[in-house]
């Protein structure tokens, strides 16, 4: 079914840059998600008078979006080029962005392109992914495919979402935001999501290129899958078969069996329907082992970063694999019989799996799965 690409190179991550409501850098994000410490607060960036819900996870003193994304790219490039390694030449490196599609997208893209060209000689923004909550997951899958097939040896992927009045108002009007001001993935009584800021960048390289430059590998992208539900404009297919196909494609590309996966960073947004569909997808793929497979959604900590969410959660997943500490599924208050999973609750779980999945789903029935190897 999948994996038509003959894999001639192994895609690896050599640099990560992150700005989130948890702070600047991967470390504060990893700490907050490991402990399950929510970063939500009252929204003061714009007027939320009259909105049903008035909370989000916002960066303190957030810079403009283009500047935030450029900071993340700079941090990722710096990590991918330690002093002991050979310098990387980005004069032909693709730069894939994931951004929200609105009246500001073209301007933000131009400012990122200009900054990347001036600072690092990156020739252009290659493409902007605007496909909602799978935008960055699709970008990573495509970057991995470019590297695995031998078309490219290095690709930069960056994503940014800073909560704006318009998107906030649309989510509030659509009754998508959590009435009680907390994101409670997979929990009984969950009532919706909360939005979060994020600017994230990763450097993806062929493993041989990282070795040639003497750059440490943070993790490998061992597999990836993309699928569609073919079901509805915005509701997920209840039985989770679309997301299950994306997971199966990722496992097949990775050449591993389901029982080799040791952690799932779930998409779960706190939405009643979507979380249940995702639990069903996990049961479809992992069968009787589902009850022993550690799962957490970290959106209860950093919020839903929309187009940037998959890259933010990839960063969390890599941090979890490297630290041997699985993040807490924050916000959970009680068992939902339709979401029976081995959730990481109350405290971080010390375990060091070889493989983890990070999952994302979006409107239109879009699904992505990334298989990450320590």
């Amino acid at each position, binding site marked *: 079914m999948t994996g038509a*690409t003959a894999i001639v190179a192994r895609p690896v991550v050599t640099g990560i840059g992150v700005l989130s409501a948890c702070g600047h850098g991967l470390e504060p994000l990893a700490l907050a998600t490991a402990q399950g410490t929510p970063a939500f607060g009252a929204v003061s960036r714009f007027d939320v008078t009259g909105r049903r819900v008035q909370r989000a996870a916002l960066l303190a003193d957030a810079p403009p979006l283009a500047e935030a994304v450029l900071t993340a790219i700079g941090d990722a490039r710096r990590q991918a080029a330690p002093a002991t390694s050979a310098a990387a030449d980005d004069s032909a490196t693709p730069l894939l962005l994931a951004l929200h599609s609105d009246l500001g997208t073209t301007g933000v893209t131009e400012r990122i392109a200009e900054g990347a060209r001036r600072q690092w000689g990156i020739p252009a923004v290659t493409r902007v*992914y*605007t496909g909602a909550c*799978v*935008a960055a997951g699709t970008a990573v899958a495509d970057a991995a495919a470019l590297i695995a097939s031998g078309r490219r040896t290095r690709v930069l992927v960056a994503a940014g979402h800073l909560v704006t009045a318009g998107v906030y108002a649309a989510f509030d*009007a659509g009754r998508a935001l959590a009435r009680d001001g907390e994101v409670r993935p997979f929990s009984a009584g969950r009532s919706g999501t909360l939005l979060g800021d994020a600017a994230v960048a990763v450097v993806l390289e062929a493993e041989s290129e990282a070795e040639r430059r003497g750059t440490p590998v943070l993790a490998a992208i061992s597999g990836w899958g993309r699928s569609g539900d073919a079901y509805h404009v915005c509701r997920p297919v209840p039985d989770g078969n679309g997301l299950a196909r994306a997971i199966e*494609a990722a496992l097949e590309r990775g050449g591993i069996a389901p029982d080799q996966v040791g952690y799932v960073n779930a998409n779960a947004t706190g939405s009643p329907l979507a979380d249940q569909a995702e639990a069903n997808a996990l049961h479809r793929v992992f069968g009787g082992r589902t009850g022993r497979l550690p799962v957490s959604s970290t959106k209860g900590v950093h919020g839903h970063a929309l187009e940037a969410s998959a890259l933010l959660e990839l960063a969390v997943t890599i941090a979890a694999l490297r630290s041997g500490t699985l993040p807490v599924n924050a916000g959970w208050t009680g068992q939902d019989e339709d979401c029976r999973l081995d959730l990481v609750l109350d405290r971080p779980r010390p375990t060091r799996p070889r493989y983890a999945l990070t999952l994302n789903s979006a409107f239109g029935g879009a699904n992505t799965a990334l298989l990450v190897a320590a």
Partner: protein
Amino acid sequence: MPPTPTALLELARAHWPESADDGLPPLAGFTASTFSPLVAEAAERCLRARYGPAPGPGPTRTALLLTSGSGDRATAAAIDAAAASQRRVPPLLFFQSNPNAVLGHIAARWQLTGPVVATGTVVPAAPGEVPADALELAELLLADGDADQVLLIAAEQAEHQDHAVALLLTLR
């Protein structure tokens, strides 16, 4: 080496508009803007040219790839205006604001189970043409194996005349 779009085989192609007085059918639930109806109509014409009436041959691993430089400007402007005025935002704008939503409509109607992808065009194409980057991405999706076909829709909401082209593609 960049991908070679000549590896693509075009199975069907359709445009909107086809004539100066071409009409755009309304699309239930998408009322704030002509953008999603434009995407849906171009896709519908392309798939009908290949398969006849919906739902076509049953589930196919067809990816949906929407690319647009303009995006849905009318919906984005409606949301910004409502948010700025503190007026109540119409609830339907929630899903209309998202380019994936109309792709979900097309996928459900024609049982297309491949990847659902939306991109912003960085280097625009002439009206009626498809941006080169979108063809490269279609070829990558096919070569990578998550889809057997790609329905590629390039749609622009322009000041004087919206326009869209849809192609059904596979590998040679």
